[in-house]
């Protein structure tokens, strides 16, 4: 359905997207997982035709976005990171307006608007001004506006930022239902749990590149069975590196003042901690993490996702 090939975009000297390629099929949710500034939103901006790539190609069902932008965008639903709605209008008026931009009218528009609002459980407040809504309700409406025209592909950009867990769960359920109805979904997030729970395949993005891609299980398999150990304490990064030097199987993933992360190898964390303490490192706290996306991200990028 959606195919992205060697996409590149630079802003001045800064490379925002550096050769990203991936493909998403119908009924699939593809997650772009990465920290803020990794290039996820720039990638989505190019996919939604708002930014022209410096190079690379984007196709929807084989149709080149650059050649037929209007035709491609007609099949696409976009839900931006920001709540881009008209607060003076009601939810129904908002949905009707956005539906009409995609060519819906008359009874078809009325039906689509009602369906979109029902999907996000806003039917009961459909005629109330949006400015009276809670943050979670606005987020749900934001989602409905991208779905009103029943697109064949949906781009969702960090759509759960800043809302409570209940509203988040509700949105994730809607996204799953949308994909199950046959829509291809690209979902960007920096929440590991969301990616783990929702996405069929995940691309881990940092500095404009996809560092790893696959199903959750496949990605975890890349990490093997190694535990990731993080030590927190009163030490300098170099001192911590020196303390770990020569320990069997240890591979330092990241080091900074007061914190060092490493994989423990086959020996496991328990077998190493005694040696580390004996080397005089002032450790306050130890965290041992089983193989996870965060651990993989840490191994791939040298930093944690939430950084």
């Amino acid at each position: 359905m959606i195919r992205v090939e060697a996409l590149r975009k630079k802003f001045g000297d800064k490379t925002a997207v550096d050769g990203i390629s991936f493909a998403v099929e119908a009924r699939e949710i593809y997650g772009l997982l990465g920290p803020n500034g990794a290039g996820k939103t720039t990638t989505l901006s190019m996919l939604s035709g708002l930014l022209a790539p410096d190079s690379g190609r984007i196709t929807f069902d084989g149709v080149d976005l650059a050649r037929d932008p209007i035709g491609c965008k007609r099949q696409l639903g976009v839900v931006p990171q920001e709540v881009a709605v008209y607060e003076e209008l009601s939810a129904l008026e908002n949905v009707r307006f956005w539906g009409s931009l995609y060519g819906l009218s008359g009874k078809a528009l009325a039906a689509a608007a009602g369906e979109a609002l029902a999907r996000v459980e806003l039917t009961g407040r459909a005629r109330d001004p949006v400015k009276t809504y809670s943050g979670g309700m606005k987020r749900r409406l934001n989602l409905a506006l991208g779905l009103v025209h029943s697109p064949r592909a949906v781009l969702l950009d960090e759509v759960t930022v800043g809302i409570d867990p209940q509203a988040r769960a509700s949105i994730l359920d809607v996204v799953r239902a949308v994909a199950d109805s046959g829509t291809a979904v690209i979902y960007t997030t920096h929440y590991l749990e969301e990616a783990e729970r929702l996405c069929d395949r995940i691309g881990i993005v940092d500095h404009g590149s996809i560092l790893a891609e696959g199903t959750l299980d496949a990605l975890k398999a890349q990490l093997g069975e190694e535990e990731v150990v993080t030590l927190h304490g009163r030490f300098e990064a170099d001192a911590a590196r020196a303390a770990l030097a020569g320990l069997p199987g240890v591979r330092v993933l990241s080091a900074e003042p007061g914190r060092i992360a490493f994989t423990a190898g086959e020996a496991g964390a328990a077998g190493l901690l005694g040696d580390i303490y004996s080397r005089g490192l002032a450790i306050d706290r130890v965290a041992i993490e089983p193989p996870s996306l965060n651990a993989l991200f840490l191994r791939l990028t040298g930093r944690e996702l939430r950084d």
Partner: protein
Amino acid sequence: MRVLLAMVEKDLLRRLRSPLPTILLLLFPLIFSGLIALTFGGAEAKVPKVHLLLDDRDGGLVGRLVGAAFSREEAQTYFEVKTLTAEDRKAGDAALLEREGATAVLRLPASLTDDVLAGRPAHLELVKSPAQSILPDVAEQVTSVLAEVLSSSSRLLRGPLDQMRNTQATPGGGVSDPRVAEIAVQVNGVVTRARPYLLPPVVTLDTLDTATRSGAKGPQGQKGPQPKPAGSSSTPSLFLLFLPGIAVYTLFNLADQMMRDLLIEARLKTLRRQLAGPLTAGRVLAGKALSTAAVATLALLALTAVGAAVAPRGVSLAGYLLLSFALVAAATGYASAVFGVARNERQGATLANLVSLLMAFTGGSFIPLNSLPAALRALSPFSLLYWATQGYQKLVTEQLGLQAVLPNIAILAGAGFLLLALSAPLWQRRLLQGELT
């Protein structure tokens, strides 16, 4: 087209749901014009008259002509003239002015007719009342015009005047009909030849008239005032006098607000969302321009409803509709251009305020054109507000027809569509380069 209509409907609904800014803006011309009317004498305020005391010591032909000039129907709107008697003169100028509450005493010297007929210098004397501020200046201006008329007539009609003087000087005073006819033909010939050059600026009182009839002597190079149609002799009220100019200014501000909305939508990210949909940048811009035109039209209808309550009957409907259409086009084009070059909302708002205020002042929206310095008056034709204000004043105050406002319509509509055409690429570039998304 359906998409454009949806965009217009959306913008109108948004205005309807947050009506306060628009209502306040629409109230501005009504409040401003009303305050001016109240300040100068109530809601039904009339243009204040110059109360002139005419001291005619000449008593001859020219003296009577001067008296008659102030008695013309047109002049009576602005002048109230009392001819002093010998008894009145005894009181002295200062006492007379105070007693009569007059604006000025205009004294015609005893030898005025003889001097004018003989081509000798003659001096009119004007004694202004120190108790009044503006009206004595008006009287002074009119008198100076009168002096010009007399001087020009004296020079132009030298031949016939000499004949009249000789006839007057003839003992017995008898003059034959052929002689009268000969002099009349000579006068008529001179007047006919000189009419295009001299008569429009001196014979009529349009210099004084400009508050209500500034279109008559504006830089459009049009003919002087035309006679009012029968039944339209009502004195123009101050409210109606100021309403068109300030309403036009308000409409330009409203258009600014609407085009500014494009930048607001950029901030709200709804613009980005629209462009992520199946819309071209041009269509988004066209939608906003149409919304601007729609809101401006509704505002114009509201202001028209108020204006109609106080305006005289018989305003040309075709002229009014076409001028209003041209005004909406001009305001939309202007706002599109201003916000097309502005980098952000704040810059756009500042620029729009500056430009519209400048256009309002030079265009006579706030202050009658004849009160402006000549340097500013020279800029008037470059102000869109000038053409709009003058157009409405011609239609409403002067009761002229469609033909009289065709230049105004052409200039406003032309400028509006030209500005739209020029600003569209600016907007498109900004939208396509992601500057606004």
